[in-house]
């Protein structure tokens, strides 16, 4: 890996980044770039861009997250034949991508991953409101990367997932945009493989030091915020039980639909297994006196926990998508924290870490099951 700096002129950080992406196409390093693009109406959405000219609309720094882009990397990368693609991702999206690769829903073979340090993002609704009402403070956020004190625009908050994200920094990608600790008006520091640098004509250059410290500062604050949320949600789970916490769930499955890890074609809970006979509902109602509908809400969440929580990378889009405003991400992240610790598993870290539930060691938990 080589460290280098992309020059920034006239304080146009975005322009410099767009220029870099264009180079990838122009130098035929990739055939298309998957990047957040500003639509003519001003919204931001991922798009697969083949024409370098259109990359003028790309915005790798747009502080908004409607979906986890790992979900859209899958379809364009998973199977052959496929093109060579560069994908611009947030750190949480990169982690999700790693998990999806393990689940064979995406492949890294012909993919150049570009991950950008993330100061935090707004919900789509907030982002749109901000645009209509004085603009998004994207430049302020970029400027604040140096100190790590990026703050949302007054009157707005970052997404709940971002507020408790302790891994906002880019890592594990082919190309990392290392914004934390950098004075971006002086250039964008990045790391990339030597052969890519050579093709792009980039020479090694040391960026500013101190990224690690800034990242740690941001992460520490996030951890604090996270832990507060975790202890609060754990308390609620203990008191109300999961059924209580999810009492107002309407079983719309939005959390599952937006979850980058939930990769099933058809969810078990939409299959005939949970399509009960009418008489069965009556039977249950008679058995318990009453029966909550839609049915199987609690077991849906518990099973989803069971299926994916070890791989939960904490992007938090599930909460954003919930029409009932349930603390889905908090629950999943809190439960995930314990489970991941139990199996010493860090989702998104490396494609070489096996998924915990399809492997085992003979010499672990040897006392379990042998109790006399």
């Amino acid at each position, binding site marked *: 890996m080589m460290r280098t700096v992309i020059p920034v002129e006239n304080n146009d950080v975005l322009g410099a980044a767009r220029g870099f992406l264009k180079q990838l196409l122009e130098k035929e390093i990739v055939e298309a770039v998957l990047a957040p693009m500003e639509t003519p109406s001003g919204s931001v959405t991922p798009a697969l861009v083949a024409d370098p000219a259109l990359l003028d609309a790309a915005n790798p720094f747009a502080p908004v997250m409607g979906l986890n882009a790992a979900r859209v990397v899958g379809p364009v990368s998973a199977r052959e034949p496929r093109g060579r693609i560069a994908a611009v991702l947030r750190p949480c999206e990169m982690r999700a991508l790693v998990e999806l690769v393990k689940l064979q829903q995406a492949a890294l073979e012909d993919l150049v991953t570009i991950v950008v340090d993330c100061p935090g993002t707004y919900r789509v609704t907030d982002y749109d409101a901000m645009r209509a009402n004085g603009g998004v403070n994207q430049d302020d956020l970029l400027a604040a990367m140096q100190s790590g004190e990026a703050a949302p625009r007054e009157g707005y908050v970052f997404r709940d997932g971002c507020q408790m994200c302790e891994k906002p920094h880019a890592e594990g990608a082919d190309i990392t945009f290392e914004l934390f600790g950098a004075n971006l008006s002086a250039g964008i520091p990045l790391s990339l493989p030597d052969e890519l640098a050579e093709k792009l004509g980039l020479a090694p250059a040391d960026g500013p030091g101190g990224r690690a410290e800034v990242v740690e500062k941001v992460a520490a604050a996030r951890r604090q915020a996270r832990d507060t949320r975790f202890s609060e949600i*754990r308390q609620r*789970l*203990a*008191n*109300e*039980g*999961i*059924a*209580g*916490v999810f*009492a107002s769930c309407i079983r719309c499955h939005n959390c599952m639909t937006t979850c980058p890890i939930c990769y099933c074609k058809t969810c*078990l809970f939409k299959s005939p297994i949970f399509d009960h006979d009418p008489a069965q509902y009556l039977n249950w*109602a008679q058995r*318990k*006196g*009453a*029966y*909550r509908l839609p049915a199987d*809400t*609690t*077991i849906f969440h*518990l*099973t989803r*926990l*069971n299926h994916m*929580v*070890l791989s939960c990378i904490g992007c938090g889009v599930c909460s954003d998508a919930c029409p009932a405003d349930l603390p889905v991400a908090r629950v999943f992240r*809190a*439960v995930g924290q*314990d*489970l991941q610790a*139990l*199996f010493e598993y860090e989702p998104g870290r490396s494609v070489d870490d096996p998924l*915990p*539930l*399809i*492997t*085992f*060691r*003979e010499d*672990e*938990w*040897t006392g*379990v*099951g*042998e*109790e*006399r």
Partner: protein
Amino acid sequence: MSDESFEPKIVAFLCNWCTYTGADLAGTSRIQYPPNVRIIRLMCSGSVDPTYVLKALLDGADGVLIGGCHPGDCHYQSGNYKARRRIIALKEIVKQAGLDEERVWLRWVSASEGQRFADVVTQMVGALKEKGPNPLRQEWAV
């Protein structure tokens, strides 16, 4: 706390080769144990889907017993090792979700351990009586 008249209901998922056979052996040996356990035969403890366990708990089973071969004895080589991880994960989730993970028991009982099977059931019934009924049995909003 314990209610003398309370008879816990235990749903047991037993592997065909070891624990189910062990339960049969308890029978052929006429070893007595409490009638609270209702057995579902599966081929391997490694095929006990956590969803089954969750369903049993949410439906109001007072206990769920998962029985398999001792480590190293799995008829399918490693099903029980995988089951061990899966059930440990499940119990953690159950606990975190505010349910009672102590109602879920994983026990290795071999085909020759009829007495152990009876002992496990006896112990489990005792422990569940101590705990009292599964509150979810009466809970309609799950």
